[in-house]
Structure formats: structure tokens, C-alpha cells
């Protein structure tokens, strides 16, 4: 597990830092342009970040700002992008160059209220997150393979989102952009058209669908009318030729109708690019609603296998996320993906002797003790 937020100690800082997002470099450039942050590891093991172009004071020989980085954040590496608060005391790792998947948080507001939400919504004005994301995009190399856009619900500020997507199209046309959204805003034809007009070839929207009919889906997302809006949004996007992924979080409430949901997708939404069947992250609302949502994955092996087969037989691409190989039916291993972000993936003691530890994505460290009771080491096949 990797920590991404922490406190740093600034030295030589007299005025607010000129920018929020910084690019971690190795100091080999003579006079790196803003906003470079030079990583320094001293022989005594201390890690520091030197912000060379932030001249402080009027002295000609004034050094730039230096930040002492705590051990929890000493994984910071060259190529990473970091956010530093204006007063130089808080650091957030926004982008890890070494990570398979990086996501940019665009807002913590949401108009759904899913009973198993691992990132409970907050009601506050956080439009600055879009600004920060724009800065990140400006610093990413064009070879960046993938950018995730997450929330909350990113479509709540339509103008800011479209501006961001347009910037991605212009700066990173070869990058896969994976936007996560509940899809409801796309039920409005105007917004759908504006979204489609961005025309980024790598743009795909991942939309959750938890049931084959409204009563269960609306209950799970705690919003009456959500199912209808989401479906209409999906249909509008499809009409406009947009790439769509469906995401199904498998939990106690919908396990019994998983096969029926697969059937529903196969008959009604066959144009989707893929379906992701996902395991629970037992944190946030999922933890407080544990009784309603938690189910040991071993209990739904059959249902998951059938739903997966229905989709595969219907020629729809399927991926299984967030499930450990030892709790999955072997037949499903080819579609299981190591999906848990590096910074929250972990393994328990039992896993250390597992022959497949490299292929398996492990568990959510954020789930704490709420993981399958049937995790066990597998021997080489």
C-alpha cells in the first residue's frame, strides 16, 4: 500500500507557491522550467524536493524552496506529478509514472448515493479540482498510455468537464481516456452532443449498471429515476457512436439477478465495448452498510460464472475486476484483471506462499478485515 497524501516541511518559503502541480525531475537539467521539482536523496536517507525556480526574497543568491519529504512519501519518483499546497505544507501524489492506472479526481460531489460507495460524496464547491487536473494534463508526456477521470460524478460541472476533455484531445490525442460517470447527465441530448463533439478517439465512459430493472438499481444508488436516466444516457451515447463500458459492482443485493442482468445487457445494450464485473471495496458506505452489501465472493461463484458466460457467448467483452484468483471459478481466470490501484493493493499472510501471487491483484487494503474468509494459497497449476 502506498500513501499519497502527507505533510511536508518547507524551507525558504516566504510567499505562496506560484503553481499547484509540479513535475518530479532528477536534477540533470541545468535550469529546469517551471514547474519542476528536483528529487534529492541524501546519503543519510533523507528525501527532499527542491523547487529551483521559485526565487524567494530579493537576494541574488537566494536558493529555491526545499521541502522535507516524510518516509511515508519517499516512494516519490522521477516522472511523478505532485500537488503542493500554496503554503508548502501538504503534498499529494497526483500521478505515479510507474503505476499501471492513474486517476484524476475531478469532484467529490455526486447525484447518486450508492449504498456501497467507497468514496462517499461531499457537498462542497470543489471546482478547483478541475483546474488542478488541467495542470496535470499539461505536464503529462504524449506517450502517456491512459488517464482515468473519476469522482464523485464528473458530469456535475459540464463546462469544466468538456473543457478538460477538449484539452485531453488537443494535448494527449494518443492516450486512452477512461471517464467514470453514472451516465445520467447524458440523458440530456444537448450535453450528449457536446460530449460527442469533443471527438477524442481514446475516450470511453464507464457507467455503472447494477440491475436489469429500475427498482433494484434505484435502491442501490439511492436515487429514484436513476435507472431510467442512466439507460437513456447510454442509448444517447450509443446513437452518437461513443465508446461505453458498463460496470457492475457485485454485492449481496444483486447477486441473485446477476445472470438476468447479463441477459438484459446482451439483449438491450449489446453495443457496449465491454462489461466490468467488479468486487466490493469495503470502505466508506460499503463499510457502514456492510450487512446489506457484503457477501463472500465464494458464495457467488456460480452466479458470477453464469453471468460471465452469458456475456462471452453474446460476443460482449467481459473483465472481472477486484477479485482474487483463489475465490474465482478457474474458468474465469482468463478474464480476471489485476485492477486494484498499486497504492491500495495488498496481500495477506496466506498469499505469500501462493504460486499465483504475481498474477493476482490481491485485496483492497482499504477493505481492512472485510475480505473473503476463503482466501488461500494456490499451488502451481
Amino acid at each position, binding site marked *: 500500500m502506498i500513501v499519497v497524501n502527507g505533510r511536508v516541511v518547507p524551507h525558504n518559503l516566504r510567499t505562496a507557491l506560484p503553481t499547484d502541480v509540479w513535475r518530479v525531475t532528477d536534477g540533470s537539467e541545468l535550469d529546469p522550467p517551471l514547474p519542476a521539482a528536483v528529487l534529492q536523496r541524501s546519503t543519510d536517507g533523507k528525501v527532499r524536493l527542491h523547487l529551483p525556480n521559485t526565487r524567494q526574497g530579493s537576494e541574488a543568491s537566494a536558493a529555491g524552496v526545499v521541502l522535507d519529504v516524510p518516509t511515508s512519501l519517499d516512494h516519490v519518483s522521477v516522472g511523478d506529478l505532485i500537488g503542493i499546497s500554496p503554503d508548502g505544507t501538504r503534498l499529494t501524489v497526483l500521478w505515479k509514472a510507474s503505476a499501471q492506472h492513474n486517476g484524476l479526481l475531478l469532484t467529490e460531489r455526486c447525484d447518486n448515493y450508492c449504498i456501497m460507495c467507497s468514496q462517499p460524496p461531499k457537498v462542497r464547491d470543489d471546482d478547483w479540482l478541475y483546474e488542478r487536473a488541467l495542470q496535470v494534463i499539461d505536464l503529462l508526456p504524449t506517450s502517456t498510455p491512459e488517464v482515468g477521470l473519476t469522482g464523485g460524478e464528473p458530469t456535475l460541472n459540464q463546462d469544466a468537464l468538456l473543457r478538460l476533455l477538449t484539452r485531453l484531445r488537443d494535448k494527449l490525442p494518443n492516450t486512452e481516456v477512461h471517464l467514470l460517470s453514472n451516465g445520467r447527465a447524458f440523458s440530456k441530448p444537448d450535453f450528449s452532443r457536446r460530449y460527442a463533439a469533443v471527438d477524442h478517439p481514446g475516450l470511453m465512459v464507464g457507467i455503472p449498471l447494477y440491475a436489469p430493472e*429500475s*427498482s*433494484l438499481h434505484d435502491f442501490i444508488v439511492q436515487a429514484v429515476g436513476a435507472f431510467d436516466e442512466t439507460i437513456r444516457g447510454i*442509448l444517447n451515447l450509443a446513437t452518437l457512436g461513443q465508446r461505453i463500458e458498463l460496470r457492475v459492482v457485485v454485492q449481496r443485493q444483486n447477486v441473485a439477478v446477476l445472470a*438476468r442482468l447479463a441477459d438484459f445487457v446482451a439483449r438491450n445494450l449489446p453495443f457496449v465495448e465491454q462489461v466490468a464485473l467488479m468486487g466490493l471495496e469495503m470502505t466508506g458506505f460499503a463499510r457502514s452498510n456492510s450487512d446489506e452489501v457484503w457477501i463472500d465472493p465464494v458464495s457467488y461463484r456460480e452466479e458470477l460464472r453464469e453471468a460471465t458466460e452469458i456475456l462471452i457467448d453474446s460476443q460482449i467483452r467481459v473483465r472481472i475486476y477486484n477479485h482474487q484468483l483463489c475465490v474465482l471459478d478457474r474458468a474465469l481466470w482468463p478474464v480476471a484483471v489485476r485492477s486494484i490501484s498499486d497504492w491500495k493493493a495488498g496481500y495477506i499472510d496466506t498469499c505469500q506462499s501462493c504460486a499465483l501471487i504475481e498474477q493476482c491483484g490481491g485485496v483492497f487494503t482499504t477493505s481492512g478485515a472485510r475480505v473473503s474468509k476463503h482466501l488461500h494459497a494456490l499451488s502451481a497449476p
Partner: protein
Amino acid sequence: MTIAFDRQSAVPAHWELLPFRFHALDPTTTLLTNLVGEQVCVNPYQLTEIVDGTCTDEALLAELRAKHIIRGFGERTSAELLAMKLRTRMRRLPDSTGLHIFVVTLRCEHTCKYCQVSRQPTSGARYDMTVQHAERALDIVFRSPSPRLKIEFQGGEPLLNFAIIQHIVTAARARNVGPTRDLSFVIASNLALLSDEILDYCKREGIYLSTSLDGPPDLHTRNRPRPGNDSWQRTVDGIGSAQRALGVDHVSALMTTTEGSLGRVREIIDQYRSLGVLNIFLRPISPYGFALRRRGGGNYGVEAWLKFYEEGLDYIFELNAAGTLMVETYAVIIAKKMFSNEDPGYVDLTSPAGIGLSALVYNYDGAVYASDEGRMLAEMGDHTFRLGHLDTDTYEDIMLSDALLSPLEQSITTSAPMCSTCAFEPYCGSDPVFHHATMGDAVGVKPLSAFCQRNMGVFTLLLRKYRDDPGARAVLRKWAHR
């Protein structure tokens, strides 16, 4: 965090019916099908409660909502999804005519008992199609709007007039310009006359070969006499040569069922397997041509055929479970209509019927027929389905002829008695030629129709397998999306 509203609050208080039909599969099971053929099974009491509005089984109501049999009061999404599915099912309707059958000669050296063609002996060029007629026929082929055009050569034995086949292939390719169609060619041959020259030609031009293989040697040879009585051997050799020259996927075989076939379906399927032919079409015998006149092998009822079919299908499911991916073509066609939104447009199972719209037949003498069976009826003296002649008629004359439009209009199942209310209607179609031949009119009386009985038997069988047998269900699902 407390959950603001519970599951029950999200359930719509009332529901409205969406268009659906029902059929009693047995005394305790009633099948409900929606506008596009999706299925739910209920018991008879539940059906009344659903219509009355008194059903309290929330799990069933949720299933009915998911399957678009009912909708929550005032909810709109289901109508939009049904419209989309309907549009998908019907999108190939404007793409007429996909299959064009050229009867290049009536000459043949076999004397098959059930031959529907009333073939002529091998010499006699007056039974061959002329170049002028072939060219006029191609005029009509390319007037058809379909983006896919399949030209099928039949006879008699078409290889006896190989020269005209070559002419037609060349001429068709030359005409295939702006917009180009997906053009394919099939020769339906007994393969007894296959030569290296012919195989080379087929390989160069990408032509498919289709042949008849009725089963094991004794069955095949008894059905298909030939001077020398070596029909089976010739067929098997022909299939082998063709597969080697053209590839396994360019060679297909069709079987015809006779009385002698009943009780031997496993042997027949094994025969196909042994030749590496993994597609079999378990067809019923048709009432046309010599078969009807001589009643040779056509003397059995629908029940006996259904038993034959079920046994064959069970064996094929067994084979699939063991890893041999054998496919039964009729079940594939129906599985697509039952378990996907695709209508495969099979000529004998569409509404409106496939006559003219799916297929046209250009006979060796220049006459144009609405279907293969329509031509066979003409050989027996009944010219009801003759649409015109290449010497005198244009595409418009043929496609707008009363001979075509009248049975077509009657063939729309949503207007036919009993078909319009039948729960199986989305899977079924019309066969006006069959009904005309057996009952005297294009629609027939469904309770007396062998076509109806047979198809209802197959639908019931496939649905039962889908519901009760997980192995069969997986196979049917795969077939539905081939």
C-alpha cells in the same frame, strides 16, 4: 450511514402491460413472449393476476419488468428499448433479394427418389440455360438493393453445364461496381462429376460447394440411385476432394429426411462427423416433386419427424459437451430469433415470406419463380408462383406482379389467423408455397398445417432444453450469436 429509502419504496406501485402473447407449454407452464420474442414462464394463475393487476410476487414482477412484458406505471425506457430492438430485428427487411438461384440445366445422371426437380437424362442441350437468359437474369440480380448477393447454381446437376457457370461468375463480377456488393457463389452439386479443372476454378474464384449427404452408405444410395449405384462413394470422395482443394469451410452438405432416416439420426450425424462436416441441417421432407407423386419416403407424420429431430439434437448437444462443436442449422436459425435481436432472414422462416424478397429462381428455360419450391410446383403443372419470364419481363414486372404481391401480403404473420396471437410468432414465418401445395391457399388453416405443427414442436423443444438443460442452454446461446 442510514439508507434513505428501502428496496420496497423503489418498487413501482402499479404496472402497465406491454404488448405480449402467451401459450400454454403444458398445463402448469405458460410461456409469455414480448414484442421481440424474449421469454418468461409463469403458471396460469399468475398470468391472470398479471393482467388483472393483482399479482404480489415482487420477484416475478421484477423479472417481467426486466423482460419488457410489463412496465412500471408511466415509465418510458422500456418503450425506447423495445423500439430499438424491433428496429434491429427488422433492419434487413429493405435488403431484398439476397439469394438468386440459377437453374443452369435440368440434366442429371442420378434418379433420386425424392427429387423435386423432375430431372432429364444427361444429353439434351435444350434443357440448358442460354447465355442470353443468364445475362437477363443478372440484370435482375443487380437491380436488387441487397448489399449481399449470393448466386446459387442448381439443376439437375449444374456441373453438366459448367460453361455457363463460368460465364455467369465472370459477368457478375464485371457488373459488381458502384456500389459493390458482397458477392458469393455456391454450386449445389452431387459432386459425382468433380474434376481437378472444376476444383481449380472454384478455388480461384472462391466458390462454395454444397452437396447432399443423406447419411450412411445404404441410406444415401437407396435414396439416390445412380447408374453404378455408387452415389455414396462418389459423394464422400467429392466432399474429400473439395475440402482438400477449397478448405473445409467452403464445403457444406445438406441431408434430406426420408422414412428410412427415422430412427437412424445418430448414424447420420456420425457420418457427417467422420467427413469433417460439422454443420448438419436436419430437414423435413418437402411435399414437392417426385416425392409427392411417388410418395417415395414421404410417408410419415410430424410426430415421427419431431422425435427424429429431438434425438438428433440431443446427440448434438452430447457431442458439444464432449468437445465436438457440431451445429444443427435449423436450431441455429431459431436460436437467433429466440435469444438475440438478429433475424437471420432464413428464406423459409420469415414474415413476410421469403418468396421474391429473400430469393428468386431463374429457370433453365427463362421462367422466373418466387422460390425453389415454386419452381418445383411448376414442374408438377402448377404455375401459381411463376412470376414472369426473362424474355418479356423487367425487374419491376416481376417484383410487382400479382403472383408475388398477393401471397406476400397474405404471408404477414401478424395478420394471419392464429399466427397473429401466437406466442411463437417472433420465431416463425410463412411458407405460402407449402400451404398452397398442401392446402390450396397461401395461408392454410394453421391447426391442420404440418408447417405449423412442426415448427411449434421445434420451438417447444428448444425452449424446454434452454430452460431445463444448462449444457444445452450454453450451446443454444453460442449458436444464437454465431
